[in-house]
C-alpha cells in the first residue's frame, strides 16, 4: 500500500498551508448552520407534549454530549497514530483537542443538570450515564494535567497517547449505559439502525445543530492547531518565512 498521502498529511507545513485555505469557508459554514439550527430549534419548533418548552435544551445538550465523546475518540485515534507512526502532527492534534473536548463535556453535564432539575426533579443522580460522563470529564482533565506534568516533548506525547487510549474503554460504557443499566437517563432518541423517536419538525433542527457543532469544533481545532504548529516548528525556515510574510502584510 502507498502511504505517501498519509505521511504528507502528517507534515505540519503541508497542513498549515492547506488548512489556511479551508478555514474561512469552514468558519462561514459553521456560523450559518449554528444560526439556523439554534434559531429554528429554540424559537420555531413546537413544544413537547409532556415537557413543554424545557425540552429545547436538547438542541444544546445533545450536540455537546455527542462531541464530548466524539472528540475523545478522535484523541484516541491521534494517540494511536502518535504511538505507531510517531507523527508529530497527531500529538499536536491530541493536545489541541483536549481542552475543546473538556469544554463540551462540561457543557453537556451542565445543560443536562439544568434540564434534569425541572424534568426529573433533581440536578444530579449517580446514574450510570451521568457517572460515566463525569468520568469522561476527569479523563480529559487527566490528559491535560499529564502533559503539564512532563517536560520532555516525546515523553509527553507517549504518556498522553497511552492515557487517552486506556480511557477510550469508557466511551462504549457511556454509549450503552442506558441499555445495560436501569438508568434515570432515557434511552437514545437518535439511533443508527432504527427510526429516531422524535417528530421530524424537531429532528431537523437537532440534526442541523449537531452538524453545526461538529463544524464549530473543526474550526476551533484548526485555529488551535495552526498556532501549535507555529510554536513547535518555530525553528524551521518555513515558519520564519511565514511569520515574516505575515508581519509585512
Amino acid at each position, binding site marked *: 500500500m502507498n502511504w505517501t498521502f498519509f505521511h504528507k498529511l502528517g507534515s505540519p507545513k503541508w497542513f498549515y498551508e492547506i488548512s489556511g485555505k479551508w478555514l474561512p469557508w469552514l468558519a462561514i459554514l459553521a456560523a450559518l448552520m449554528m444560526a439556523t439550527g439554534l434559531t429554528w430549534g429554540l424559537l420555531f419548533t413546537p413544544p413537547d407534549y409532556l415537557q413543554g418548552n424545557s425540552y429545547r435544551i436538547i438542541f444544546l445538550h445533545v450536540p455537546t454530549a455527542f462531541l464530548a465523546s466524539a472528540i475523545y475518540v478522535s484523541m484516541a485515534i491521534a494517540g494511536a497514530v502518535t504511538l505507531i507512526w510517531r507523527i508529530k502532527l497527531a500529538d499536536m492534534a491530541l493536545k489541541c483537542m483536549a481542552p475543546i473536548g473538556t469544554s463540551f463535556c462540561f457543557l453537556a453535564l451542565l445543560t443536562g443538570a439544568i434540564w434534569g432539575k425541572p424534568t426529573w426533579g433533581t440536578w444530579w443522580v449517580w446514574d450510570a450515564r451521568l457517572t460515566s460522563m463525569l468520568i469522561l470529564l476527569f479523563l480529559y482533565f487527566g490528559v491535560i494535567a499529564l502533559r503539564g506534568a512532563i517536560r520532555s516533548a516525546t515523553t509527553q506525547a507517549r504518556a498522553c497517547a497511552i492515557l487517552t487510549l486506556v480511557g477510550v474503554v469508557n466511551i462504549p460504557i457511556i454509549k450503552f449505559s442506558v441499555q445495560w443499566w436501569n438508568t434515570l437517563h432515557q434511552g437514545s432518541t437518535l439511533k443508527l439502525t432504527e427510526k429516531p423517536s422524535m*417528530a421530524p419538525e424537531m429532528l431537523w433542527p437537532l440534526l442541523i445543530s449537531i452538524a453545526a457543532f461538529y463544524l464549530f469544533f473543526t474550526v476551533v481545532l484548526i485555529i488551535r492547531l495552526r498556532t501549535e504548529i507555529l510554536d513547535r516548528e518555530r525553528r524551521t525556515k518555513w515558519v520564519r518565512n511565514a511569520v515574516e510574510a505575515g508581519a509585512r502584510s
Partner: protein
Amino acid sequence: MNPVRKQRLLLILLLIAGVGVAVALALFALKENINHYYSPAQIVSGEAPIGQKIRGGGVVVPGSLKRDPNGLTVTFNVSDGEGEVEVEYTGILPDLFREGQGIVGTGKLDEKRRFIAEELLAKHDENYMPPEVQHAIDKAHKPGANAEGAQ
C-alpha cells in the same frame, strides 16, 4: 506497514483489550451495587428487604393518586404489569409526574410493604413530539388506551 509499527499497533490493541476486560469484570462484579433497584413485582414477592434503603420504580397507576388535603403528602400505586406497590411521598413532585408516567424513587419499605419514598424522580422516555401529534395519537388509540389502563 513495517514490522515495528505492526508490533506497536498490536501492543495498543492488546492494551485496550486488557483494560476493556478488566473494566468489564469490575462492572460485572459491581452490577448489584450499581443498581440495588427493585421492581414492584420483586417488592410484592418479598425479595426486597424491609427497612433498608432501596431504589424502586414503575409506572404510576392511573386513578390511584391521592393527595393529603392538609399537606404535601401524596400516595399512589406503581406497577410494572406484574405487581403493584403503594408509595407514600412528602414533598414537591417533579414536573413530569403524572399518572401513567414512569417514576424512580429512593426510600424504605415499611412493615406493610408500602414504599416510603425520600426522593422521587420522574423518568422520561426517548420520545419527543409536539402536543398536536400526541392528541392525534390519543384520539386514534382511545379504545385501546382504555383497555390498557384496565389491565
